[in-house]
């Protein structure tokens, strides 16, 4: 019964995705190279994770396919570098800039400068008032769906370890806030205080060692049942730690759809519980298409959401 329900949900989401993609492709099909003669700058905080790289490639590939000259800059996970890159991009005066992820506290004053320089700004996974459009997943739904799956797996009671190192990254904040909101309705679920900090770099190793410490502190009779983070790379380390400790009472939950973690979720013997898989490449493509629509005089909504799919042990992939 449960399996069918999930299967249906996956199928509905997949159909919606197909329709959305078909519609967006159609909207720009009128002109073969709508961005011919245009220069578009792309600045991303990093491409060292699967999601980042796919979304970045989606933008660059699609912009080129639409005829644009692309100035693509990867900041190598360094805020200073990204700021310098944004400043340099402004100096080059491209026809539009797409910015992907990063720390909002650092970025916002600089995104404002892009707007002040009169360059249309588009973002990927970064909600900011300075952008014309933000292309992203529905992170509110992602958080809620993941939390509901956890509630179900935990029988609505038990302790949760939360990795929360990236509260300054808007999508992370939204997802984990939603998880907390869902838990409010289930008073027997408790998030362990203090929350843990996931880090970049050394994400997997650090999560492994932090999780090992938590498992020592919270033994099999402690009621610890779940581990969650706003993405899935730390969950790879956490799952490995749980399995190394021989524990079968604790499951992990993440977001993004990194291939290694999806494999773990699909493995019936793994302690990886569920992951919300995002369409990173499609998100990047969609952002590029929004630029094309806007630069050709079309109307672009303030956000475009590309559907994501929850994958659990019962999903058929």
């Amino acid at each position, binding site marked *: 019964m449960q399996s069918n329900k999930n299967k249906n949900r996956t199928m509905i989401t997949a159909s919606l995705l197909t329709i959305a993609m078909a519609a967006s492709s159609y909207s720009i099909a009128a002109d073969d190279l709508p961005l011919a003669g245009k220069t578009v700058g792309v600045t991303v905080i990093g491409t060292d994770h699967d999601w980042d790289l796919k979304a970045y490639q989606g933008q660059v590939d699609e912009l080129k396919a639409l005829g644009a000259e692309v100035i693509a800059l990867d900041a190598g996970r360094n805020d200073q570098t990204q700021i310098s890159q944004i*400043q340099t991009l402004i*100096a*080059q*005066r491209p026809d539009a800039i797409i910015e992907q992820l990063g720390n909002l*506290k*650092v970025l916002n004053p600089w995104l404002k400068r892009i707007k002040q320089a009169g360059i249309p700004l588009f973002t990927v996974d970064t909600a900011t008032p300075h952008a014309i459009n933000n292309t992203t997943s529905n992170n509110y739904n992602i958080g809620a769906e993941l939390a509901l799956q956890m509630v179900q797996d935990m029988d609505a009671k038990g302790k949760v370890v939360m990795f929360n190192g990236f509260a300054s990254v808007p999508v992370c904040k939204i997802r984990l806030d939603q998880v907390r909101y869902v838990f409010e309705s289930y008073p027997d679920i408790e998030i362990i205080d203090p929350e843990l900090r996931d880090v970049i770099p050394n994400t997997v190793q650090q999560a492994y060692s932090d999780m090992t410490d938590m498992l020592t502190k919270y033994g099999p009779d402690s009621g610890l049942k779940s581990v969650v983070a706003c993405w899935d790379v730390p969950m790879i380390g956490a799952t490995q730690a749980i399995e190394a400790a021989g524990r079968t009472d604790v499951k992990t939950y993440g977001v993004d759809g990194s291939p290694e973690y999806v494999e773990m979720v699909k493995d019936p013997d793994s302690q990886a519980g569920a992951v919300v898989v995002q369409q990173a490449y499609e998100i990047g493509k969609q952002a590029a298409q929004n630029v094309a629509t806007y630069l050709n005089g079309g109307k672009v909504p303030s956000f475009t959401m590309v559907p994501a799919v929850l994958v659990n042990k019962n999903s058929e992939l």
Partner: protein
Amino acid sequence: MKLQLFKSDMNSNGYTLQKMAIRLGAFAAFLGIMVFFAVTARGFTTSYNILNIIEQSTILGFLAFGITVVFIGTGTDVQKGGIDLSIAANAGLCAAVYAVLLERGYGDSLAIPAAIATGLCVGFLNGFAVVTLRIMPLLSTLAVMNIAAGLELAVTQNTVIGAASPLLDTLAFGKFLGISALAWCLIIGAALMVAIVHYSPVGLRLYSVGGNVEAAKSVGIYAGRYVYGSYLFSGFAAGAASILIVARLSASTPGTGLLLLPVLAAALLGAVFSRRFVPTIGGTLLAVLFIGALSNGFQLLGISSYWVSGVQGALILVVVAVTSFAKKS
């Protein structure tokens, strides 16, 4: 006797010629790369972009001045001389202290002295390890680098700490005569440094300690104090740079320690631009602008920022090899 004199003249001429060739080579490489960027990179020569390069080089400049003073006071010999590997991590720690204090509601009047004091404490620790405990500078400052990096993580919990104050706003977005506040900081900072290091008795004594410590001691200079002083200054430079870092990023963020490579590259490369291959403020400033222009040109050409690190590493290798080769000959 005559013959010997002639021979020594020949040697000294050859020596000078070789040095001059290396120095001119460095200038030629600098100019060549600038011309290459001017021709190939869109927007490189616009006044807006040139001001960007200066602004982007300010933080690097402050840190490179700190390490240059350590080089001046302790000699540039890579093995026997001094070095401050902790300077970038120290700046990260100072930025963390500064941002946390601002976030907790303390104003600039407390947060700035606290950031500078933090930098000075780390500088003192370096001086203590190198001068008092006589630990090799490469190792002692490496250890202090880890202490500073660890403390930064402890203070920030490895998170981004947002910071705002009127001073930070002015530094980040202020302009005077069309030049941004950060660029002014570099211009004024460099002028002050030149005055202190090259035209004051303290600066000249520092050069004598770094040039030949025994000779300096024999004329009554307390060499240890100057070495201590150079590490303290390096700590001060980290503290001052931290305020500029927080201004530029509107926050303290993890990753400031990564500045060590470009800072070292700038300070070492600076010596090549000077006549006698000694570290000078002017040389360091030129090297800082060179590295800034290199990063900027790479960005304009759309070359991955990862290559910039590679080029900086290669620069360090080439500069150290060339200067030690020139000194030996």
